[in-house]
């Protein structure tokens, strides 16, 4: 094994190293205190983020099965940062948990799977990564060991993801059957002939739609999100979703480029349904996790809107949106996880009068929700603007009008939460919650990202340059 393996698979190698180190800690059993273990893990994850920024080499391995470039490094950095933030936020929940190291081992395995998945240049590698990233997630969903809902969520997760995998695999097998190759680059020019390939494309598309929880394949989302522990829900709705979007972009732009007009129309329908249904269902929710689940379904619709343009601008705005979305959504989840860990409450009505005793957490929540709703001066405004602008380049103003009008609907339900926090009166509001230092740091990072990222035009321009290559 030459040095280039280490260089090109750097982030995967580091992650594997961390996983082994944690396994070793588990076996050694020398550190008894949960707090120290958590601190060690958080430091490791932070180092992982930092290490991901330097000494990156572009190239490919295993005759194109695995490749990496600047865009992928950026995508992996987004995932790493998100995982780090979630880990910081999970502190209050995990510090009394019996199986702490297993949690991290499973979590990092899924992250490793995602890294492999988005770096894949071959359908087999892609499928391996996908499975590695989704099966441990089911175990994670079940991590509230005494809650029945958590088990329900895990079962739903494993069944629906198995089903999605089936569909995907069926499509892949047909693709392999008709082209005789699994490599993206070799397969792409051979596609676009015959009905069987079209069918295969539809299957693959549906498999992706399942994973993305875009309408009409969204039904599993809300139940899984509701039952899973808050940090896992955050992981599912941010990291897991982002990684699928990344590989989806690669699949559409590289593998299925011959199907351009077709996937545009499929996306069109999917966007229309996803945004509208996601929003309409979000209005009716009272459980804040279900609420965020449906709102995140609607957000996926906007990401697809950017992608549907089929341009570099569309892709880069989708990536930018996901970056902003990571910070804003995780900020909101951070506050929810604090409340859930300390009081066990997770209804929107429980948040009434939240501002009375928890000023900082309330502002974090409000700013993150505004960012999700796309209200300036938060970064979410810029991200949504770019997505919509990219989508509008096609000249399909009906779709744009519906998307933009849906932003008003979404504002309604985000404001409902803000109203509960700031305006509504409550005789017994939630007491002052004392979160751990790491939670506070994570929230500060989130709020900083959610405010400043939009003004940093250099970031967006950088994304645009690297995706252009």
């Amino acid at each position: 094994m030459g040095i280039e393996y280490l260089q090109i698979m750097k982030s995967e190698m580091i992650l594997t190293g961390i996983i082994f180190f944690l396994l070793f800690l588990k076996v050694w059993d020398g550190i008894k205190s949960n707090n120290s273990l958590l601190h060690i893990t958080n430091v490791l994850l932070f180092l992982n983020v930092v290490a991901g920024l330097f000494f990156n080499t572009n190239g490919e391995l295993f005759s194109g099965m695995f490749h990496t470039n600047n865009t992928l490094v950026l995508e992996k950095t987004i995932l790493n940062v998100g995982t780090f933030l979630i880990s910081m936020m999970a502190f209050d929940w995990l510090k009394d948990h019996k199986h702490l190291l297993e949690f991290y081992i499973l979590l990092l395995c899924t992250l490793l799977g995602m890294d492999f998945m988005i770096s894949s240049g071959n359908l087999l590698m892609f499928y391996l990564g996908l499975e590695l990233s989704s099966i441990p997630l089911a175990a994670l969903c079940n991590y509230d060991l005494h809650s029945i809902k958590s088990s329900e969520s895990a079962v739903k997760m494993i069944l629906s993801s198995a089903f999605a995998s089936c569909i995907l695999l069926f499509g892949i097998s047909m693709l392999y059957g008709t082209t005789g190759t699994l490599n993206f680059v070799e397969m792409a020019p051979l596609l676009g002939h015959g009905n069987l390939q079209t069918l295969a494309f539809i299957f693959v598309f549906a498999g992706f739609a399942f994973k993305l929880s875009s309408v009409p394949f969204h039904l599993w989302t809300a139940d899984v999100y509701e039952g899973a522990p808050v940090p896992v829900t955050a992981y599912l709705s941010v990291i897991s979703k982002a990684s699928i979007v990344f590989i989806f972009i690669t699949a559409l732009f590289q593998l299925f480029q011959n199907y351009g007009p077709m996937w545009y129309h499929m996306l069109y329908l999917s966007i229309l349904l996803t945004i509208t249904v996601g929003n309409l269902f979000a209005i009716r929710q009272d459980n804040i996790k279900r609420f965020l689940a449906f709102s995140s379904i609607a957000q996926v619709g906007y990401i697809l809107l950017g992608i549907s343009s089929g341009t570099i601008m569309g892709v880069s705005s989708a990536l930018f949106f996901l970056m902003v979305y990571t910070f804003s959504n995780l900020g909101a989840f951070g506050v929810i996880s604090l409340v859930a860990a300390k009081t066990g409450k997770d209804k929107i009505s429980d948040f009434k009068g939240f501002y009375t005793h928890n000023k900082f957490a309330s502002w974090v929540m409000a700013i993150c929700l505004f960012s999700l709703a796309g209200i300036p001066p938060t970064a979410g405004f810029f991200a949504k603007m770019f997505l919509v602008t990219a989508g509008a380049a096609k000249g399909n103003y009906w779709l744009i009008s519906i998307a933009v009008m849906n932003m008003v609907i979404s504002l309604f339900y985000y404001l409902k939460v803000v109203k509960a926090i700031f305006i509504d009166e409550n005789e017994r509001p939630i007491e002052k919650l004392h979160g751990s230092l790491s939670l506070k740091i994570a929230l500060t990072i989130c709020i900083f990202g959610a405010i400043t990222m939009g003004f940093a035009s250099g970031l967006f321009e950088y994304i645009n340059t690297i995706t252009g290559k």
Partner: protein
Amino acid sequence: MINLSILLIIPLVTAVLVMLCRNAAQVRMTALLGSVVQLGYSSLIMFDYMSQRAAGNKSPMLYEAKVSWFSNLNIEYYVGVDGISVAMIMLTAVVVMTGILISWSVEKMTKEFFFLIVLLSFGAYGFFISLDLFTMFFFLEVAVIPKFLLIGIWGSGKKEYSAMKLALMLMGGSALVLIGLLCLYFNTDAGNGMHTFDLMKISHMHISIEAQRFIFPLMFVGFGVFTAIFPFHTWAPDGHSSAPTAASMFLAGISMKLGGYGCLRVAAFLMPEAAHEYSWIIILVSTIAIIYGAFATLMQTDLKYINAYSSVSHCGFVIFGIGMLTKTAITGAVMQMVSHGLMTALFFAAIGMIYERTHTRQVAQLGGLLKTIPFIITVFVIAGLCSLGLPGLSGFAAEMTVFMGSWQNPDTFYRVSTVLACASIVVTAVYILRAVGSTGMGPIKNADYLTFKDARWNEKLASVTLILCILAIGMAPFWLTNLISPDTQIIMDNISRSVVGR
């Protein structure tokens, strides 16, 4: 040397300082200081602007500054002002300062209150100085959410409902603007397959008439929602009446002007052909707004509702003036924006002062207040007289200009509308005099009223400032006209050139 970005930096610094303050007294002083500095700087800009114009500077925009922001989309941070924007900036500065003075006694969450007020003013200043449509839209939306919180937290009555209604309707309006904006953007050509948001560049481009027909209504209605255009005015009465005093002043004084300014600067200026085509609809709708607003006011019994509905009617004059597309009428529309901003701020301030003492705004329960709180009622009377268009006060000067400009349009339909709009002034006189009379005159209806103390220093200072501005414009309207008419001329040139070219 004038740098417009300072207009944005001052509120931002104030907002940060407000957040750092330790107690309510510090918060108030900081906010006031910030707004005074801002007013000073705005005045500096105005005088410098006038001297530059007097010296023969003919460029359409002054103090331009341009920084590339998102270069791959050709988005720029591009600011510059002309006379119209300068007038709007002055208006904003005055209203914000007086609003802060009036809210001196806010006890509940003082820090957050002043922070949001300052944030609102930040949005307004940014909107008025932007020459890039993207930046403009950004600032337009910045000014929405603080209103939601201001009304929701510090409001009265059915505040949750009003706050939500206002936020959603305004956001709906800005969504329409956004669609129009994107459509406009993709119809521009900046070379190399790029498009532009640059307002001045677009004004020299020829946007195809088909595109204009589609974009103009979106833009005009979108901005129109902000200025309570009929039939999208319903947020205004509820919003105004539930809002705390300073927020009402801000809403009616500045926020509604964002819409009027947008209609003029973006919709009419950039799409003159469509403006001509749709002119009759604009006139129809605004005439309805003027008359409907006036009659709806007659039916109101709550002082704030009276002013809110009369605002719908008065802002109708702004749209009316713009829709007439003659130079005088547009000048009048801008004057009406300034005049209405000041007058309605004064009106809401007076109502706020009365409400703070009596805890009721129902006209029927008030009476004889002139005897106990003469200063406040005098302010109230002056605001009322300005609203009904008494010569010597700003309302007369502005409305008169609008009517004169409208009459220049020889078409029968426009003449009839002008006559109808003129007639609404009679109705205005009825409701204003009735409200003023039964509040200030007559027997004292409640023994508690005898114990009231008259205005405090902050209230006096705020009222006097506003009254002085109203008097200045009313006595010497040429002063304001000179400021804005060179720039309405530029807008008119654009509009008439398109008609000749067709």
